[in-house]
C-alpha cells in the first residue's frame, strides 16, 4: 500500500485504488470518533475525513499547511475534538491549546485530552482572549473555526495576543454565520478586506480557496501578520 507524506505528519494512503487522507495515530488502537484505523509497515494511521474537518479539506485543496511536528498551535473552536485529534497526531513534539466555549462540548474534548498528552483544553470564549492570556503562550499557528458573526475580529484580537511574529493564521470562514442572506462570495470578500486593513493589525493573505465540495459556503484562508516596526 503506497503511503505519501503530503505535508509534515499528513499522509495520503492508497487503499483499493482509493486515496485516503490520514495522520499517524499517536495512541495506536484507539479510534477517536469512529474513524477507520489502517496499519502499514508497523505504523497505524487514522483516516481523516475532509468532509468532517475544515483543516482536512484545506489539505486536499492543496493549501500550504504551516504545521510542523514541533509547532505550538492555538486552536479556536475546538468543538469535540475531531480535527484537534489529527492536529495532535501531527504535533509529535508540539502542543495545541484547544479553546472551546460550550461546556457540553468541552466534556467530550476533555475525554480526548485525558488520552493525549499534547492537548491543553481551555473552556473560554474566543472573543475574550484576555481570559486565557495567562495560560496560552505565543503560537506558531492559530487555527480558527468558529461559527460566529465576527470571525475576522476574533482572529485579529487573538493574533494580537498570541501569534508569533512570523506565525501563520489559518482561518475557516463560514458565510452563513456572518449573514444568512447575502451571497457567500461577497461575504468572503468583505472578510478578507477586514483582515487586510480593517483592524489595528493587518494580515497578508497567502492563500484563499472555497472548501467545496467538502464544506458548502466555507472559505479556507492562510495569512501572515504584517510585522509593525513601531511596536
Amino acid at each position, binding site marked *: 500500500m503506497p503511503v505519501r507524506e503530503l505535508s509534515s505528519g499528513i499522509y495520503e494512503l492508497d487503499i483499493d485504488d482509493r486515496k485516503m487522507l490520514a495522520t499517524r495515530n499517536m495512541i495506536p488502537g484507539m479510534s477517536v470518533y469512529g474513524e477507520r484505523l489502517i496499519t502499514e509497515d508497523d505504523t497505524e494511521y487514522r483516516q481523516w475525513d475532509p468532509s468532517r474537518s475544515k483543516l482536512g479539506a484545506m489539505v486536499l485543496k492543496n493549501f500550504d499547511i504551516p504545521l510542523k511536528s514541533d509547532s505550538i498551535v492555538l486552536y479556536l473552536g475546538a468543538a469535540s475534538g475531531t480535527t484537534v485529534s489529527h492536529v495532535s497526531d501531527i504535533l509529535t513534539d508540539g502542543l495545541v491549546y484547544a479553546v472551546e466555549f460550550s461546556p457540553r462540548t*468541552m466534556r467530550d474534548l*476533555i475525554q480526548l485530552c485525558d488520552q493525549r498528552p499534547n492537548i491543553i483544553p481551555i*473552556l473560554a470564549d474566543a472573543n*475574550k482572549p*484576555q*481570559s486565557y*492570556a495567562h*495560560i496560552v*503562550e505565543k503560537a506558531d499557528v492559530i487555527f480558527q473555526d468558529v461559527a460566529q458573526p465576527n470571525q475576522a475580529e476574533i482572529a485579529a484580537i487573538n493574533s494580537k495576543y498570541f501569534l508569533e511574529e512570523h506565525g501563520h493564521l489559518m482561518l475557516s470562514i463560514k458565510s452563513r454565520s456572518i449573514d444568512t442572506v447575502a451571497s457567500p462570495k461577497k461575504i468572503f470578500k468583505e472578510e478578507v478586506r477586514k483582515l487586510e486593513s480593517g483592524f489595528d493589525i493587518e494580515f497578508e493573505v497567502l492563500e484563499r480557496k472555497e472548501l467545496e465540495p467538502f464544506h458548502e459556503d466555507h472559505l479556507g484562508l492562510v495569512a501572515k501578520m504584517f510585522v509593525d516596526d513601531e511596536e
Partner: protein
Amino acid sequence: MEDCDLFDKDPEKLAELVVQLQESSKENPQSVPLQRADLRDAALECGFVELDEDYDILLRDVCIRAAKSQISQTDTDDSRIIQAVEALDDIDKNVNELSERLFEWYGRYFPELEMTGEELARFVSAYGSRTNVPEDHEMSEKASSSMGAELLFADEELLRTFANNICSLYDTRRYIENYINTSMGSVAPNLCEIAGASLGARLMSMAGSLEKLAAFPSSTVQVIGASRALFKHLRSRAPSPKHGIIFNNPVIKNAPWWQRGKLARALAAKISLAARTDFYSGELDPSIKEALDKKLEHIRQANPNPPERK
C-alpha cells in the same frame, strides 16, 4: 521572579487560580497587557519547573482540572429545570407513540372503547380482557357486545405489561411537572408568578438559560417559540406560526382576538422584567404582578369591542 515561592505546585490549587484569573479578567479586555511575561519562560527561569516537558505536563494537568471544575459548575438551578423540560418533551413524544401502538393493538380486542392515551393505558392495565370489565363500569355494555376478538391469556398479559409501562411513563411525566413547578418557585419566583411555572420554564429552555432570557428585549420574548414552529413549518407541512409560546398563557388564550396583540405585548414586557429581577436579585417582587394586572385591566377596558371591518 521571587513570586515563584508564592505558589506551590499543587495542581488542584493552581487550577483554582486559573479559573479565578479567567473569571476576573473576562469582562475587562484591558486587564491583561499584550506585552506580558511568558509564563513558560518565567516558570523555567525561577526554577518552578526544571524542564520544558515538566512545564507541559504541569500546565496540561492544571488546565484539565480547571476545565473540569468549570464544567461541574455549569449544573446551575436553571439548567436543571431546562433539562427537566427537555426530558418532559421527550417523554411526551414517546409516550404518545407507545399509546398509539396500544390503541392499535388493544383495538383488536375492544374496538368500541374509544379511549386513548393515559385513559386507555389505565383501562388496559386495570382490566386486560374486556370480560374482566365489572358490570357497574360505564363500558360494561360495550364490552359485552364488542365486535373485538377474544383476548387470550398470553396476549392479555403482554398487553397489560405494556400498558403498565405506559402508565409509569405518564406517572413520571407528572413527577417531572411537579419538579418543574417546585423548582421554578424557588429559582425564578417572579417569572413563575408572571408567566406561570410551565411557561416560564419553557421560555428559559428556549432562551438557553435564565441569564439569556433576562437579556432578551421584551419584543423577542413575545415571539420565543415561534421560530421553532417556523422551522417545523418549513421542514414539514405544519401550519405557519402566528405567535410565540406566551400565547399559551390564559391571559392571552382566553382573551377576545382583538385584545390579544396588546395583552401579549404587556405580558411580554413584564415577563422580561420578571426574568431580570429573578436573575439579578432572586427575590419575589409583588409589584410586578400588581403593575401587570393594572395594565391588563386597562387594555381590556380600553378595547371592549372588536374593531370595525375595513
